[in-house]
């Protein structure tokens, strides 16, 4: 004991105390505590506290296709201005090829087009102009679509009243959602499943042959009815005004119309809406949502107040959900759910209980075994093992890591593996005790000789754990975190705490000889 340096005992004791103190918030686990200290507790993963995990993919192909359609429209307009005849337009997966009637003005068309869409790749070959969506252009579309989608998704989730949602970009074209406490994600999925692109179009009632042939002339589109696929409308392709001009929408109830959504436009929207309704009295105005006509009432008088209602065959929930969607705005492209994992609170609680029992029983078994094999030294190692567990818990709490079910498995596994370092040390001490009789020298040699083996052995496990973190997803990461923390903590507890305890024991018990 005389030789045990004060700084070493001080470090060991203070680290152990810190480990125990910072484990307290996670052990008490007061969910709603605002106390600065008690807040440093473990976060429970969705698989333990219950909740939903959703992975959404932005359907970028739809956007690329839309952009190609825009190209076609723009080229048509430009050529009309330049009085050049277009013979044929070929839309391929990634490019639009336009065949012109003559080649004189083709360069001018190319230049005007480039003014509108900087960044696209344009190529002239005889009477052909090819317009290509190159990678950079696609990337611009992609990035802005994801950014917009994230924002809209966030608004919609907020409107749905979910507590503490996590919404973030994942990879190139995906959005990851974690919704703690959401037991039934169906409503959320409904909210996210709609693009909610709202536009108002004037209906063309005169051109009846277009509808009969199901062939829309340039500048028009054919859109089916929401409730009856066979009813179709011929509309002006250009929207009078769109959902982006809405400032408010809410579900309302009208004695004659039933459930409806009332909305209000911003100044610009109100002006446009007022102008169009003034000029088109007697015509019908179609309200189009995600490619279907909800309703197409006749304009009986000019609507200049900038507000109105949308009626349809809604119930109360549908009307209020539509209002939520309209308030949050339209998604740039549809979202597809590619992965979903929902856990009820019951299963989560069961998993925690089972994990605790497994950890406690594993711990007791290992402790009994260590005492049976190593006697007093085993008991000392058990103290290290218990402190080790406290340190893992306090580290998880302070770094704000998330504990998952595989994470609990990692802790239980660590209980078994953490004694390894102690075992290596004790086995070395056993060997050394055959070579000499000086008690403290035996212990010192034992620790020194075991050191490099402990490092080698634990670093290999750490490598596996770190790579698991890098490539793993969700719950599996929780496993690699607890395993890594466990391995690191076990090196500390064995090399420092067990060391300290063994020295203390030997000097207080005043051992003259050592038998292990």
């Amino acid at each position: 004991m005389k030789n045990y340096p004060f700084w070493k005992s001080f470090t060991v004791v203070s680290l152990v105390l810190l480990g125990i103190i910072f484990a307290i918030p996670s052990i008490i686990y007061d969910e709603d505590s605002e106390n600065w200290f008690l807040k440093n507790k473990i976060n429970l993963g969705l698989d333990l506290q219950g909740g939903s995990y959703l992975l959404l993919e932005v359907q970028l192909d739809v956007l690329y296709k839309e952009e190609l359609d825009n190209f076609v429209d723009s080229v048509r307009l430009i050529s009309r201005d330049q009085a050049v005849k277009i013979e044929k337009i070929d839309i391929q997966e990634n490019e639009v090829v336009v065949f012109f009637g003559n080649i004189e003005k083709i360069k001018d068309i190319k230049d005007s087009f480039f003014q509108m869409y900087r960044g696209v790749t344009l190529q002239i070959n005889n009477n052909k102009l090819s317009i290509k969506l190159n990678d950079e252009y696609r990337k611009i579309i992609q990035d802005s679509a994801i950014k917009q989608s994230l924002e809209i998704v966030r608004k919609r989730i907020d409107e749905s009243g979910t507590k503490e949602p996590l919404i973030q970009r994942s990879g190139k074209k995906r959005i990851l959602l974690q919704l703690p406490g959401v037991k039934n994600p169906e409503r959320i999925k409904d909210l996210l499943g709609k693009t909610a692109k709202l536009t108002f179009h004037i209906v063309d009632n005169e051109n009846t042959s277009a509808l009969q042939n199901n062939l829309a002339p340039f500048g028009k589109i054919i859109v089916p009815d929401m409730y009856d696929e066979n009813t179709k409308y011929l509309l002006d392709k250009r929207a009078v005004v769109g959902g982006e001009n809405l400032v408010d929408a809410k579900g309302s109830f009208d004695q004659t119309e039933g459930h409806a959504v009332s909305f209000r436009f911003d100044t610009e929207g109100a002006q446009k809406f007022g102008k169009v309704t003034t000029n088109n009295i007697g015509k019908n105005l179609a309200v189009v949502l995600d490619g279907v006509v909800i309703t197409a009432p006749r304009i009986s008088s000019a609507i200049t107040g900038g507000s109105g209602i949308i009626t349809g065959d809604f119930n109360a929930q549908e009307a209020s959900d539509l209002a939520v969607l309209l308030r949050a705005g339209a998604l740039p492209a549809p979202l597809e759910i590619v992965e979903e994992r929902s856990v009820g609170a019951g299963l989560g609680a069961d998993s925690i209980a089972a994990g605790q029992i497994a950890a406690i029983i594993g711990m007791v078994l290992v402790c009994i075994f260590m005492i049976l094999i190593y006697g007093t030294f085993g008991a000392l190692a058990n103290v290290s093992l218990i402190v080790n567990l406290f340190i893992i818990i306090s580290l998880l709490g302070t770094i704000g890591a998330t504990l998952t079910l595989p994470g609990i498995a990692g802790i239980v596994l660590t209980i078994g593996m953490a004694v390894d370092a102690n075992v290596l040390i004790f086995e070395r001490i056993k060997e050394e005790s055959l070579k000499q009789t000086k008690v403290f020298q035996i212990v010192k040699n034992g620790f020194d000789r075991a050191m490099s083996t402990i490092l080698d052995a634990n670093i290999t496990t750490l490598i596996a754990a770190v790579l698991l973190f890098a490539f793993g997803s969700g719950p599996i990461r929780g496993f690699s975190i607890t395993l890594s923390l466990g391995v690191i903590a076990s090196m500390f507890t064995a090399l420092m705490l067990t060391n300290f305890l063994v020295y203390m024991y030997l000097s207080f018990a005043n051992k003259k000889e050592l038998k292990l």
Partner: protein
Amino acid sequence: MFGLNKIIPVEPNINFLGLRRNFLIFSILAIFISIGLLSIKGLNLGIDFKGGTLIEVSTKNTSIGELREILSSSYNDVSLQEFGNENIILIRLQNKSNQESIETVNSVKNLIQDKVVEFRRSEFVGPTISSELLFRGFQAVSFALIAILIYIWLRFEWQFGFGAVVALTHDVLFTLGLLSILNVEFSLATIAAILTIAGYSINDTVVIFDRVRENLRKYKKLELVDLFNLSVNNTLSRTIMTSLTTLLALVSLFIFGGEVIRPFALTMIIGVIIGTYSSVFIAVPTLLIFKFRPQDEDD
């Protein structure tokens, strides 16, 4: 204190290397059978890697048979399984597209609504995700193996690295083979278990190799076979102790840790046993291929 530590003598002298031919034959057979099983029967892939829908429900006043009857009238690819006890039922469905499966979950829920106390969990993994997860799992295992090897190669001579690879490949294949026979569900958690086994097995091997290296310096005249035997014996009680404590914890996890974690615990138990075996009987004998000392080359 209790004298139990005398069960394993301090200086055991068991001729492990003498048995190496028998164990080599055993392991080679096991590996061939494993490869055969993996290519013919394959693994019982869970929805993480196969894609599909999984719903866990707790039920009342019903039986698995009744639920199966209700569901199989609407779906022909539905499979049901009791999960832990007879009131908890796991429903699996294979579906092709993302959109389809979202509707599936809803309609399954509607069909069995009145028989169910609680929908405990529902999982859906789309086809693109499942193939990505499989690829990333494969990537993780490969990178981990390479990184571990580089570490061993830096810390030891390359011959040890070779021994470690052989043992590690053996462990992974053997474990996968047993998973195939036992029809254990192969999921993301299984990949984590395999990686942990790799770490554990190497850990075990490294401890013995450490001793081999030390003894190579210490006993310059000893025959290699005897020296390897000595090293295995030196570290034998540690090898056994650590495996046993790890197994104690894992068995506790297997029995008490709940149904969801059971395949993980089982995979780890299998892996720890194989990893311990291979460190002694595969990794060390592999070193005999190499001549570690100049004088050996004269033989």
